[in-house]
């Protein structure tokens, strides 16, 4: 029994990898679905914008409020903006926005493609002279890969603004000084890996959502299952990628 579930786990990993690879083999051959790509970018970016924004603001605010007493104890209150900005930009904002997107976009894609599969819409595209993999999967994976970094950068900025609000609840930090200190603490080697990894987050979320939907089981309960497991697998992958990213930046001494 245990052996069996391990086997099916490996089989699924293999299938997802093949699916992820197919994105490259089919995605870079013509006919390119630009209109559909733009439409997906708009939906994926716009639909999660407010959720990511609110979460980022709260994270920035809370992190600042929580960090403050410790720093005050050491008489290092002036480090607050710098410390908060490093944690937010390097880790918290990218990962939180990726997780939110895994929940919102991953499940959305899983459910959408799942119901398209079950109601034969994917077959209907195929008989209408359209490659459904390109039209549905390539565009969505591409849109996720492009839009999640954009959302993460917005989350960086909004969470820093939340940090500014947090810093002003108990103390007084001048607006210009706050931003100066926040950016001063950040170096290029903080920003680059933090942004690069969000492309991988986006790619993973897109691939998993599409995979789960595209190979959804027959029946309507299959659709719910696809949406659900898309969220679980995508969220897990976000952490795995984060772990790998931190190892790689460590090896290259970017820390």
């Amino acid at each position: 029994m245990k052996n069996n579930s391990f086997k099916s786990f490996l089989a699924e990993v293999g299938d997802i990898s093949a699916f992820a690879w197919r994105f490259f083999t089919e995605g870079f051959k013509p006919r390119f679905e630009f209109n559909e790509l733009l439409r997906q970018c708009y939906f994926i970016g716009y639909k999660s914008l407010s959720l990511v924004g609110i979460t980022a603001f709260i994270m920035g605010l809370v992190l600042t409020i929580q960090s403050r007493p410790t720093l005050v104890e050491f008489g290092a209150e002036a480090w607050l903006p710098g410390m908060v900005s490093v944690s937010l930009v390097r880790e918290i904002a990218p990962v939180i926005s990726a997780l939110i997107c895994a929940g919102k976009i991953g499940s959305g894609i899983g459910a959408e493609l799942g119901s398209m599969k079950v109601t034969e819409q994917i077959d209907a595209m195929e008989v209408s002279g359209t490659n459904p993999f390109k039209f549905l999967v390539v565009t969505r994976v591409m849109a996720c890969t492009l839009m999640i970094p954009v959302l993460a950068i917005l989350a960086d900025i909004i969470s820093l603004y939340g940090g500014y609000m947090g810093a002003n609840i108990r103390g007084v930090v001048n607006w210009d000084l706050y931003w100066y200190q926040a950016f001063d603490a950040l170096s290029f080697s903080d920003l680059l890996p933090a942004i690069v990894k969000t492309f991988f987050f986006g790619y993973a979320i897109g691939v998993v959502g599409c995979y789960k939907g595209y190979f959804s089981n027959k029946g309507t309960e299959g659709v719910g299952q696809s949406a659900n497991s898309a969220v679980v697998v995508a969220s897990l992958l976000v952490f795995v990628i984060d772990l790998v990213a931190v190892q790689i930046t460590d090896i290259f001494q970017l820390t």
Partner: protein
Amino acid sequence: MSTLSQTVEMEKPTAKGNAVVSIQHLSKSFGENHVLRDFSFDLKQGENAVVLGKSGSGKSVLIKCIIGLLSPDKGSINVLGQNVPDLSQEELDRMRVKVGFLFQSNALYDSMTVRENLEFPLRRHWMKSTLDDVDGMVMEALENVGLGHTVDMMPAELSGGMRKRIALARTLILKPEIILYDEPTTGLDPITGKEISNLMLDVQKKYNTSAIVISHDMNCVKIVANRIVVLIEGTCYAVGTYDELKNSNDKKVKQFFE
């Protein structure tokens, strides 16, 4: 009832002879599940052939092999002179312009309006060639099924029968020579089912199409069938007209008519 069926019987156009779809020794299995075994059948120009079979007997698999959505394990499927399993993607796309497919679940695109649904096959199949009268073609296709007023609605706003008609309009918009109907009346009430069946008959007459109709709704079968194929255990078990099979002595054939 009998008079009605007789008038309908007389109105049916008759088959003209040469085969437009020729299936020879078709086999298809999924793992250990041997769905089709050595199935052979010819669809003649201008006829409506009904495939009768229990659910799960492989009827949908059969027509998905014809349109090239599934590839057979063995056998040949000749559609309008071309063997489907040998076609390249491009040739397959060109063949699919001439062969329409009406899906059992309609397969209308949820995220698009009725207009966009109908435009989809038009724009997709002929990207570069002349497409000046898309609007006219959409409206004509919708008027044909009597639903011109729904053009800007979403599929979710329509009833089951209306959705079936829209799906039929989308299939007809490319003026196919052959139509494959997958259970066109399943899930509809008897009256709507009858309307759809009559619509199918109109299509046959108006556009001189040939069709393979999958069904186990005997009311529909009675209206549309020129010829019936009984699919049992993956093979072509019996072929004949409605009356021939209805009066058959074979138990397995008879059970469909009870």
